[in-house]
């Protein structure tokens, strides 16, 4: 129980600082809108064609928005020297990982919820089905699990903006494949059984990388 209280303290710190600065959610949302706009301009296609490419557009938007918010999540720690403070706290590295991961997850989900709304309006699609929401949550857990690990790693390299996507993108390939497939099925109104293989892969990824990241996060931030 003490562990979870520490975890929530780390998450709450991030939520509090985000509520005061509104740095991540606002800027990333604007970015997500821009990605949607650029896609709309790049593919000027009819509504029935749109249904084919919509899952792809959705997940490219979420992936890039995810990378951006992951980057911000540790930049503030580094720039203000908060990382040293955080590590000096009587909190285990594992608790820092879970706390930061929950913060990242929360911000990403807020961004995605609003982006989905924009998506529904701009593309005239009914996106708020239980299947699509489940896919989004599962895939975002996958993004946050390895993303937090790599974000903490990238922040200590010479080219952090470059290293994070180079590491993050090939590793989350299974999540992107599964999410695009499952959302495509959900948008076309297919049943649960058809999407289950995709969902299972994303869920397996989530479990495996939550455990692996939890175990090796301590080696990333030790100084």
């Amino acid at each position, binding site marked *: 129980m003490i562990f979870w209280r520490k975890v929530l303290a780390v998450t709450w710190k991030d939520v509090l600082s985000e509520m005061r600065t509104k740095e991540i959610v606002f800027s990333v949302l604007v970015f997500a809108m821009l990605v949607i706009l650029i896609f709309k301009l790049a593919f000027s296609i009819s509504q029935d064609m749109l249904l084919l490419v919509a899952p792809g557009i959705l997940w490219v938007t979420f992936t890039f928005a995810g990378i951006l918010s992951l980057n911000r999540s540790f930049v503030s720690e580094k720039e203000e020297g908060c990382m040293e403070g955080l590590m000096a706290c009587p909190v285990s590295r594992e608790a820092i990982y879970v706390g930061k991961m929950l913060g990242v997850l929360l911000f990403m989900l807020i961004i995605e919820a609003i982006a989905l709304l924009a998506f529904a309006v701009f593309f005239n699609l009914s996106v708020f089905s239980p299947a699509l929401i489940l896919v989004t949550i599962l895939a975002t857990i996958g993004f946050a699990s*390895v993303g937090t*690990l790599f974000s903490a*790693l990238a922040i*200590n*390299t*010479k*080219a952090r903006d*470059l*290293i994070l996507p*180079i*590491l993050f*993108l*090939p*590793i989350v*390939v*299974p999540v992107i*494949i*599964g999410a695009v*497939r499952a959302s495509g099925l959900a948008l076309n109104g297919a049943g649960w059984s058809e999407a289950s*293989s*995709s969902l299972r*892969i994303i869920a*397996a*990824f989530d479990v*495996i*990388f939550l455990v*692996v*990241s939890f175990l*090796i996060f301590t*080696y*990333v931030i*030790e100084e």
Partner: protein
Amino acid sequence: MKTSRNIYWLWGLSSVLFLASLLMVFIFVPTEATMGVVQRIFYFHVPLAWVSFLAFFIVFIFSIFYLWKREEKWDIIASSSAEVGTVFTTLFLISGSIWAKPIWNTWWTWDPRLTAALVLWLIYVAYLLVRSYTAEKERGARFAAVVGIVGFVDVPIVALAITLWRTQHPSPVIFSGGLAPAMLFTLLVCLSAFSALYALLLWLKIAMKRSESDIETIKEAIDRGN
């Protein structure tokens, strides 16, 4: 002294095995019925893939060792194996591409297995990049080890995810008895030739990195002396 003798031994072994595999691939083995002479690239393509996986498995094992024990020697083995493995994966992609052109009439298709190989290659390029973009050596080794572990764990999930698509690649016939005995024998000789080459390259790379590390230590000692 011991190191250099082992190198000669490995060098001799891989030379003999390579000579044997060239003779077998070009003279001994019968030409495949449907694909013709092009199919002979198979005897290089499959061993390249095998060595790539072997190399990345070694990276995985020694990355864990390094994070656990924190001794530079484990990192030297992991990083050397990653470099050799990336070269072999590059050759594996290129040989596959050369094979695909006459058979599928295209240099590249987004077939699941090809895509998986490309993802594999990108993961280990990232492994090498992380190290080179880190200022301190110890930190670079630590970060690379993390990528070496996460990357290897990811490979089966990537493979699983992409089989959600339909595949154009022939399913493996090697263990299901679909390969003629002469072909299987040739493949085994080629596999051992490439494995010996991998061991040789790994050995050379490790020896080189050890020397680099020694020079670094000596340099520091001299700098302190001045």
